[in-house]
């Protein structure tokens, strides 16, 4: 779907990007200043690499060797910026129609009414951008980009300019769009919770390069990428299915490749596929099966890799049945427990984040006793 192989100077460092991603949501994830925005700007045609090639859906948009450089306005790509960048003298409806009128014969993934309904912006249609809240503005900006009928939607930290409450308000809309429209998306973020909730493919960007790229569950479970993903937010993401609900205790049992997990009740019928994330710092290890513990989720596992870091901590990659987990321990604990590659352990999971529920809600729940 997206083929990137280009070199570009961006500010004080050089980008060297090589990436091939399937359709779906590709997240460019990395620290601020890693070059994520520059990559998206190059895809959009707002910045120009000095060498290499960019292709979307088989069409070459840029090729330095062959002298191809399709202007941004003809690339047919949507772009949602960090700030909404709405045209101030047009009403919300005027902004929404701005790209629609200039779609050059392409038709959007959904019609005006459907997109307006998905983003819940119908009541705002007559208003001016200056009178909208930050979250409303960003929803209009997303609708505007979608109605221009893009072949690929680029989203550059669309939540970064919002406070936590607005962010929580907007995330479900993004999730809804992802499921309703089946539009390829490149989503830039430095917040792991957004990425895990929305992405299918994860590319880690570090110092202008793609440090790793692959399906999100694979990449998040790799211990060697821990430092890139950030100290406290690292963890493993995986797909799970709702098995049954326990209404008396308001709990839900989920099945995943490594067994079953009990989590606070998820608002979705049995059989629904959801995305869960288990942060490395929420996983404890024991060499014998712990008893008399409040944690509900205790799973047999074995150590796949050890990744000591400078400082007190070490990351441990675990195989739990067919799934991968990560645990963040002190190096002292690793030594005390005498852990090595292949050691059998019990993984005690203190919390499971249900990131992608059928009803599009997020809950950070602890399934303790």
């Amino acid at each position, binding site marked *: 779907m997206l083929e990137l192989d280009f070199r570009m100077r961006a500010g004080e460092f050089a980008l060297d990007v090589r990436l091939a991603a399937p359709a779906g949501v590709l997240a460019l994830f990395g620290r601020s200043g890693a070059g994520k925005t520059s990559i998206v700007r190059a895809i959009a*045609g707002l910045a120009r690499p000095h060498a290499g090639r960019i292709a979307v859906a088989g069409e070459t948009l840029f090729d330095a060797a062959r002298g191809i450089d399709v202007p*941004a*306005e003809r690339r047919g790509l949507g*772009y949602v910026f960090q700030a909404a960048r709405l*045209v101030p003298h047009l009403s919300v409806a005027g902004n929404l129609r*701005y790209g629609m009128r200039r779609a050059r014969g392409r038709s959007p993934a959904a019609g005006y009414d459907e997109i307006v309904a998905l983003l819940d912006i119908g009541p705002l249609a007559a208003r001016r951008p200056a009178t909208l809240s930050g979250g409303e503005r960003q929803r209009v900006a997303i609708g505007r980009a979608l109605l*221009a009928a893009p072949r690929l939607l680029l989203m550059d930290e669309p939540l970064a300019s919002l406070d936590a409450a607005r962010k929580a308000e907007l995330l479900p809309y993004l999730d809804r769009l992802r499921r309703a429209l089946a539009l390829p998306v490149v989503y830039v973020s430095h917040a792991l919770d957004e990425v895990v909730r929305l992405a299918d493919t994860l590319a880690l960007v570090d110092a202008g390069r793609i440090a790793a790229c692959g399906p999100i569950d694979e990449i998040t479970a790799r211990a060697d990428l821990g430092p890139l993903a950030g100290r406290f937010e690292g963890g493993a993401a995986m797909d799970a299915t709702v098995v049954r609900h326990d209404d008396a205790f308001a709990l839900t049992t989920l099945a995943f490749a490594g067994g079953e997990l009990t989590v606070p009740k998820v608002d979705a019928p049995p059989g629904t596929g959801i995305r869960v994330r288990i942060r490395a710092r929420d996983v404890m290890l024991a060499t014998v099966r712990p008893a008399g513990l409040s944690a509900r989720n205790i799973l047999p596992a074995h150590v796949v890799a050890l990744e000591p870091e400078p400082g007190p901590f070490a990351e441990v990659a675990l195989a739990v049945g067919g799934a991968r987990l990560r645990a963040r321990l002190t190096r002292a604990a690793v030594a005390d427990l005498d852990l090595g590659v292949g050691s059998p352990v019990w993984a005690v999971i203190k919390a499971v984040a249900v990131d992608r529920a059928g009803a599009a809600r997020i809950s950070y729940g602890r399934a303790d006793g």
Partner: protein
Amino acid sequence: MGPLSESEIAALLLSLRIAATAVAATLPPALLAAWVLARCEFPGKALFDGLVHLPLVLPPVVVGYVLLLLFGVRGPLGGWLDANFGIRLVFTAEGAALATAVMVFPLMVRAVRLSVEALDPGLDEAARTLGAGRIDRFVSVALPLMLPGVLAGAAIAFAASLGEFGAVITFASNVPGETQTLPLAIYAATQTPGGDAAALRLAALSVALALGGLLLSEFLARRVKRMLGR
């Protein structure tokens, strides 16, 4: 009409007509020059900037004289216009408008340039990603946002046009009914024995016009700002 004589009314109407023509003729080149100065980098930009602002610092008589050299019937441009189109600018109302336009050009450029510099380049990028080409973006995004600056520039240029004296009298002379604008009529009145009363009336009229113009431009600026949602 009561307090004003027929020739004084003619001077007033002529002034308004010449000022309007001068502003309309200056607007397109002023927009272009302002855009180039605000957005483009090229060798010789400082010189171009200086040339644009020259009428502001030169004695108006010099501007009028240079125009006389260029557009006189024997001048390179004037001769060409006369030979090909039969247009003569010297000593005509059109010539007075040309001299006025040259004088107020830098005022207009300065006002418009500020509004170009105030444009958010991010909006231009957003419009590009929505499929708008260069001219489309200028018309649909930049121009409406520049409107307050353009209006302010036009209002200032109009007010200054009403008062232009030196360049007009040098290039177009002081022909009653043809090139005698308000300031020229005031000048003529002061040179005529017993013309003090007429000079005073015309001066009061000039003050009223200038004040009215400023109030109108302020009113327009407010309306436009509200229209733009700011």
